[in-house]
């Protein structure tokens, strides 16, 4: 088995896992299983990107989506107490719509990338050894303004989400963490030095009531 065949085999395995997991996302009965399948899909796609020598994209996908976004998804889905049966009922009814959407997307993607793309071999990396260096330099010099605008849009989205969900209650009780942290032991405890005192003989304990004998 030479190098190219090995890579091809890896590609087929990861692609198959990604497809299977993506199908499970839709078909799984349990929503937690769906979320976990989505995690597996992301992970397999990240592996595919690593195969394509896009190590920054692949690892960033794992860090951002698998490591953070999907954890929150999972968190929310676990807390949901949903009845699964009504959700299942719509499955057959909406299936034609779903298939139509999927076919349109497939056609669009093939239109953009082209079926031929499968045969094109990646050329020599213009960035030399590490595409991370190249990517960082491009992002922070040539594309600095779009990069900052994207960051700003994300921040606005974050603030907007908080503002939408925030409900200030008038009677809510809260702790003043700064005041709590500022407490010193000396304000709460007073240590007293005392001379040892000789214990006086304790008064004889009252006779315990006699237990009735068994």
């Amino acid at each position: 088995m030479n190098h190219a065949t090995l890579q091809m085999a890896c590609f087929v395995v990861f692609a198959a896992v990604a497809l299977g997991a993506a199908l499970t996302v839709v078909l799984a009965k349990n929503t937690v299983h769906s979320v976990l399948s989505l995690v597996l899909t992301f992970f397999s796609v990240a592996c595919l990107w690593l195969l394509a020598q896009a190590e920054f994209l692949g690892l960033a996908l794992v860090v951002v989506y698998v490591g953070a976004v999907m954890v929150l998804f999972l968190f929310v889905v676990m807390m949901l107490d949903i009845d699964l049966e009504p959700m299942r009922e719509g499955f057959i009814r909406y299936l034609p719509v779903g298939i139509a959407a999927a076919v349109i997307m497939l056609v669009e993607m093939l239109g953009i990338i082209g079926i031929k793309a499968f045969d094109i071999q990646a050329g020599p990396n213009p960035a030399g050894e590490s595409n991370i260096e190249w990517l960082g330099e491009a992002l922070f010099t040539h594309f600095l303004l779009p990069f900052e605008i994207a960051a700003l849009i994300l921040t606005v989205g974050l603030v907007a989400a908080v503002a939408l969900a925030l409900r200030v209650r008038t009677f809510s009780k809260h702790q003043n963490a700064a005041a709590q942290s500022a407490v010193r032991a000396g304000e709460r405890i007073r240590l007293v030095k005392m001379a040892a005192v000789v214990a006086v003989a304790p008064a004889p304990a009252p006779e315990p009531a006699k237990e009735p004998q068994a």
Partner: protein
Amino acid sequence: MMTSDALIFGLTLGKILLIAVPLIIAVAMYVWWERKVIGWMHVRMGPNKVGPWGLLQAFADVTKLLIKEVIIPTNANRFLYFTAPLLSVIPALAVWAIVPFDNGVVLSNANAGVLFLLAMTSLGVYGIILAGWASNSRYALLGAMRSAAQMISYEVCMGMALVCVLVLAGSLNFTAIVNAQAGTKGLFDWFWLPLLPMFFVYYISGVAETNRLPFDVAEGESEIVAGFHVEYSGSAFALFFLAEYANMILLSFLAPILFMGGWLSPFQGWHLGWLSDPGWWWLGLKVFIFATSLLWLRATFPRYRYDQIMRLGWKVFIPISIAWIFVAGILRYFGIVTIGH
């Protein structure tokens, strides 16, 4: 072609075993050392019956765990219940692929080493969340919820501390990061000095990431029994245990590599003969000090309150980190900190 590929495959497998087997033994010895150190701090003896100085205690415990019955709670999700320990131990072992032990002694000298580290450590949280959910137990679920929130929060500060190191070192490769700390001013050439607040942020976040005291609310014996792994027994529990201690040893490796010069001598450039030479023994010594300091923390501090942990992460560490990224950028841009010699 076939033979050379097979040869590379076999060599890599051998190297993986060469890292993984000592790591697992190190975990066992670390557990022994932890019990000894905490024993001394409590004015107790610690384990001293099995083998000389109790050295075989850890192995006795492992054997006991492995031959115990594995119990599955009623109505637990069987598949996820057994997947969870694997999901927590696999990233904990996989991350060792990029940890360098000496100049050039590393399984994969990847250019994207730091990213791989972030990717793998961010996966560890799945094992804990799934263990809590699949156990079908309230205590376990509470532990999983706490742990998820805590680990995600502290990952942010940890990532930002790494960004500061990357800005100064100019590379995501661990070997390059260590070599960037070489110089003639001894230990003052290391990154702990220009990045002092980030060094503490990284170390404390690391302790929070590994769910160790004083941030062990995910387990919190006095509140929720044992948190996410309360229902696990036998070898399934042993896997969680292995993952936690492997992550602690990882933190003890990464803190020296990122901030304390890795295998570089603290007396580098001072012409003290062999004392000034770099070598794996320096890394080993630093790892030992950091690993022991984790135990010291455990024996010394009471557990943080949950809301205080969140406050520390989001309201203290993240502002400091954001400010220090600018400081690191200025230090680098104006050449105040120079890398290499």
